[in-house]
């Protein structure tokens, strides 16, 4: 008894908008473009949506402003503010709310114009922490750099292995016409790029882009009557261990190690069964940590696991097949994009980057500085 309605809700519509930078749009305009596109993709009308789970980084009241903008009067709203993992958590609540009959069609949506509008990182982190802020860490990069340094010390992880993650992401991005950065990238390019916070160079860090994404979820019985091949939600779990990096006792072990076993148990599958893995790669160290904590390799082996192109196209495990936050898109919060890519792969419409016969996909979200970890596992009809 896991308590989760395995396979009883599905994504039936999905869309992204503005990944290629669209100067002039506000964040909510980008969000609305993606939201209406996802609703149309689902074969539904906006009036069919009765639950809106939204997120705008700079708007604490998006639960009201997004429905207002879309002209929807939802009976259920949700705005979990855990940063980039919010969308996996929203998918979990969507499945539960749909299964309980609280609502019939959930829209999960996000938008940010942080590249063209704000001209830099969107400030969505809340009040400064008085026991770190005075030292002026350049967050989030500094916090992840402290983790990378410690991982290198404990497990012998190397800068070359970190760079492998960025290079693999770029090779996937080169197969994705929507990806923001598609120029060739080598291990040396990553290591010789401008150092931001040792050992992370600018190429170990995610992009700063615009972008919006949206998905629509319904109960599975209805999903089968809609135009797209449904991506069924088989398991979803999250865990929160801290907010600030100085309070995480072992910085090389994240709460994903707590969330993942619950999500896998709900889904009734194990890591080796997963055909395609979409991780929240805000920094190259993330991919290494999450491959370990989600159970794809033993703790400490992440660096060696990714070596020699193992997660690049043609490698042993397809990871971040859209190009990830490192090369495809990273508009402040990236979590919804991992779910859109998982759905795209399970529909079999991913073009040159399509993983043949993909039946099971994992879409992971990371919020804060490794603080909130959320795992969703998705499957095609035959996995039910």
């Amino acid at each position, binding site marked *: 008894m896991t308590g989760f309605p395995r396979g009883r809700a599905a994504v039936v519509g999905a869309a992204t908008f503005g990944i290629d930078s669209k100067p002039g749009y506000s964040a909510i305009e980008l969000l609305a473009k993606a939201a209406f596109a996802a609703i149309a993709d689902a074969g539904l009308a906006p009036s069919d949506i009765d639950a809106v789970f939204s997120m705008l980084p700079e708007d604490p009241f998006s639960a009201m402003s997004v429905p207002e903008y879309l002209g929807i009067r939802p009976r259920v709203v949700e705005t979990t503010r855990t940063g980039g993992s919010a969308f996996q958590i929203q998918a979990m609540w969507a499945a539960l709310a749909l299964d309980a009959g609280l609502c019939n069609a959930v829209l999960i949506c996000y938008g940010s114009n942080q590249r063209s509008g704000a001209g830099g990182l969107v400030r969505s982190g809340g009040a400064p922490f*008085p*026991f*770190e802020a*005075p*030292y*002026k*860490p*350049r967050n989030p990069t*500094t916090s992840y*750099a*402290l*983790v990378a*340094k*410690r991982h290198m*010390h404990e497990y012998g992880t190397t800068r070359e292995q970190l760079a492998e993650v960025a290079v693999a992401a770029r090779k996937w991005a080169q197969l994705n016409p929507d990806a923001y950065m598609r120029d060739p990238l080598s291990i040396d390019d990553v290591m010789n790029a*401008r*150092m*931001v*916070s*040792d*050992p*992370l160079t600018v190429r170990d860090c995610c992009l700063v882009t615009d972008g919006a994404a949206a998905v629509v979820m319904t109960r599975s019985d209805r999903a089968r009557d809609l135009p797209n091949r449904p991506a069924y939600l088989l398991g979803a779990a999250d865990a929160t261990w801290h907010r*600030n*990096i*100085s*309070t995480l*006792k072992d*910085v090389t072990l994240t709460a994903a190690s707590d969330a993942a076993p619950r999500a896998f148990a709900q889904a009734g599958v194990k890591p080796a069964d997963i055909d395609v893995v979409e991780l929240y790669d805000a920094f190259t160290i993330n991919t290494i940590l999450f491959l370990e904590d989600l159970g794809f390799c033993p703790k400490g082996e992440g660096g060696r696991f990714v070596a020699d192109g193992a997660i690049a196209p043609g490698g042993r495990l397809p990871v971040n097949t859209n190009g990830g936050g490192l090369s495809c898109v990273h508009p402040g919060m990236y979590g919804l994009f991992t779910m859109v890519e998982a759905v795209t792969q399970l529909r079999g419409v991913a073009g040159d980057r399509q993983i043949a016969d993909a039946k099971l996909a994992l879409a992971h979200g990371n919020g804060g500085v490794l603080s909130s970890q959320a795992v969703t596992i998705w499957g095609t009809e035959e996995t039910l």
Partner: protein
Amino acid sequence: MTIPIKSVHPEAEYAAFLAEGRFMVQRSASTGEAVFFPRVAQPVTGRDDLEWVEASGAGSLYSFTVVRNKPPAADYIIALVDLNEGVRMMSRLIDCHPETLSIGMPLQARIGDVDGVPAVLFQPVEGASA
């Protein structure tokens, strides 16, 4: 040994001590366990018998990173420091070069400031290595 001071408004009191040049940490009167960052009660247990005691200032280097800046702004070193009291804090390392640092090496606290704001800073213990 200083006499413990009852902790009522932890955040403001920590800052006030620092402004006086004192590095204080909280400790549970009943268990002796240290607490950092300062709180109104001990996390996990909720025990509200926290008092202020002078920190030893001795610790070791858990991790560090050099925050790089465009000249003329100077680079600086952000560190996570494990205090001998059994708690961890973020800080800056001063009077040292990144090449000479190694994780695990002993450190000693010094009250200084970051851009005019009083802060607990650390430097490697002379002649010591990890």
